[in-house]
């Protein structure tokens, strides 16, 4: 009785222009696979005849090896005879070879560092005209809105105002309170060295109302609202809802982007003001309970420190950041591809773009207002 060898085994028998390949033994993925003949072995051949013992391929390893062999043989324009194979592998091999492999390969999924860097650079560069085109469309939409020609559902605008205003208050309160606390502590430790704790009030009031209130509100909204905008519009892209608008001749800019932009531009100045007030309250608690500043003195110093200019600049900055968040969220959403992964990427990209734009604009605005001595 013939017992099959315990491991995969291949015999190559060359007869003039015919190569006979006989596979025996038990083929499984845990054992080493025999090597394919090297390139020189194929020269002068016209045909390959495959054969194998019955039952030696419990988990498809033999089939995979034969498929690899057939691909190489096909690459050398050899005819392949599978008649000697057991019927199972023979049929599966015929099925696997029925359609030639795709030769137009997509990009290498594991590119090198420089290739990745180049691709990212090209991607960022190609984003620029798209961003400009989207900006142009939004400006045109704003023009239509000012002329009363842009139409969107008022109910959706109110819903967006509620979602991005009142519903953002808890997180805005928490973050602003903590930032006010940090600001007061950091300032107080330094100021206490000169016995000037009272100026904590100035530091916190001007810092929160003019700069940090708006900045933190912008960052909160980037994570909360910008991401939501990108996900909402991105999902609409996936579900062809944006296409449905376009085919009706309804502008997605008017219908989707303008109400979102308007909702944030209306709500962010108020949120900024609110964040400033919460920050001042936090600073006041720290100054009065930890550093011994009197409540009345603190409030008096706060009122002296603040001017309408600080308040208006803070609200203006908040409005700019809000507009940038809405722009980034809607832009990335409109750019979204048509898969769940693309929605995730659009969301991430919206947050990153928002924070980048907020940071750049914060720097520019701070320098501009300082130069103007406002």
């Amino acid at each position, binding site marked *: 009785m013939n017992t099959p060898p315990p491991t995969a085994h291949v015999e190559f028998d060359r007869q003039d222009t015919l190569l006979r390949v006989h596979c025996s033994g038990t083929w499984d993925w845990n054992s080493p696979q025999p090597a394919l003949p090297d390139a020189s072995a194929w020269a002068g051949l016209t045909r390959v005849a495959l054969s194998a013992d019955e039952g030696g391929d419990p988990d498809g390893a033999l089939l995979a090896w034969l498929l690899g062999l057939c691909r190489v043989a096909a690459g050398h324009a050899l005819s392949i005879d599978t008649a000697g194979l057991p019927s199972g592998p023979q049929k599966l091999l015929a099925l696997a070879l029925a359609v030639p492999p795709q030769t137009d390969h997509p990009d290498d999924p594991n590119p090198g560092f420089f290739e990745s860097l180049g691709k990212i650079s090209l991607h960022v560069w190609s984003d620029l005209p798209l961003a400009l085109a989207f900006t142009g469309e939004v400006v045109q939409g704003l023009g239509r809105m000012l002329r009363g020609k842009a139409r969107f559902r008022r109910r959706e605008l109110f819903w967006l105002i509620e979602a991005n205003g009142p519903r953002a208050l808890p997180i805005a309160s928490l973050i602003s309170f903590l930032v006010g606390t940090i600001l007061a502590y950091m300032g107080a430790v330094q100021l206490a060295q000169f016995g000037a704790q009272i100026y904590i009030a100035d530091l916190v009031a001007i810092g929160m109302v003019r700069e940090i209130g708006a900045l933190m509100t912008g960052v909160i909204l980037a994570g909360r609202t910008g991401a939501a905008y990108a996900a909402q519009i991105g999902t609409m892209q996936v579900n062809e*809802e944006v296409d449905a608008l376009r085919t009706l001749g309804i502008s997605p800019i008017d219908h989707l982007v303008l109400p979102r932009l308007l909702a944030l531009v209306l709500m962010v100045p108020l949120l900024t003001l609110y964040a400033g007030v919460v920050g001042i309250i936090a600073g006041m608690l720290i100054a009065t309970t930890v550093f011994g500043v009197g409540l009345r003195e603190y409030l008096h110093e706060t009122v002296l420190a603040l001017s309408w200019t600080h308040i208006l600049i803070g609200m203006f900055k908040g409005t700019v950041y809000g507009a940038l968040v809405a722009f980034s969220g809607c832009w990335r959403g409109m750019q979204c591809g048509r898969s769940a992964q693309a929605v995730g990427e659009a969301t991430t990209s919206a947050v990153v773009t928002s924070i980048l734009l907020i940071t750049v604009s914060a720097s520019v605005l701070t320098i501009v207002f300082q130069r103007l001595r406002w």
Partner: protein
Amino acid sequence: MTSPIISVRNLTMAYSDNVIQHDLSFDVQQGDIFVIMGGSGCGKSTLLRHLIGLQRPATGSVSYGQDDFWAASPDAQDQLKRRFGVLFQAGALWSSLTLAENVALPLEEFTALSREAIRAIIATKLALVGLAGFENYYPAEISGGMKKRAALARAMALNPDILFFDEPSAGLDPLSSRRLDDLILQLRDSLGTTIVLVTHELPSIFAVANNSVFLDADTKTMIATGDPKTLAQHGPDGVRSFLSRGEPL
């Protein structure tokens, strides 16, 4: 013979340098139920996107009557779009709106009808697709088949001359698919609507279509046009093979 309602001439569709189909030329006549057919990945839905103004052709033209869609101004394109309704593959209902609001949106945008009139139209359109009483449901609250019918009600809101369907039977059980076929025939017979379908559901093709174009993925162009029943008998081998589900010719 009357002039065609849709006329496609020398159309080439491409993504960057990758040509999907080239040299497509065919006509759709008023009252036709016209099927765009072909194997998976041959560019059927892409052709539909070119017809409904979502994708600009690389070359060639798509005309509605005498109007070349892609040569028209954006405003004129929007006017032309109001002549057709589109049923997307998954319905594409606006998820934040109820079914009634979905149907109402085009009416509110493009007509000066009173609220009462719009309400009556919504009720009629939803009843026509078997969704009477579902006015206040959101898309997430109804089944896939119902979504498609609601989307059809929305597509019919402005009484379009032409209705485009992208894979209307995809994901539907045979009975729902049959009901949709009957609805398509009724729309054509009772309203005279011209219907353009993208599908590879053979029962639907033979049940409803009287004209078609067959796109071939290998040659990247159309290889036949005409009545599918005639093509099944006398068309090119590839088309006959497709229409007989690969049975020996």
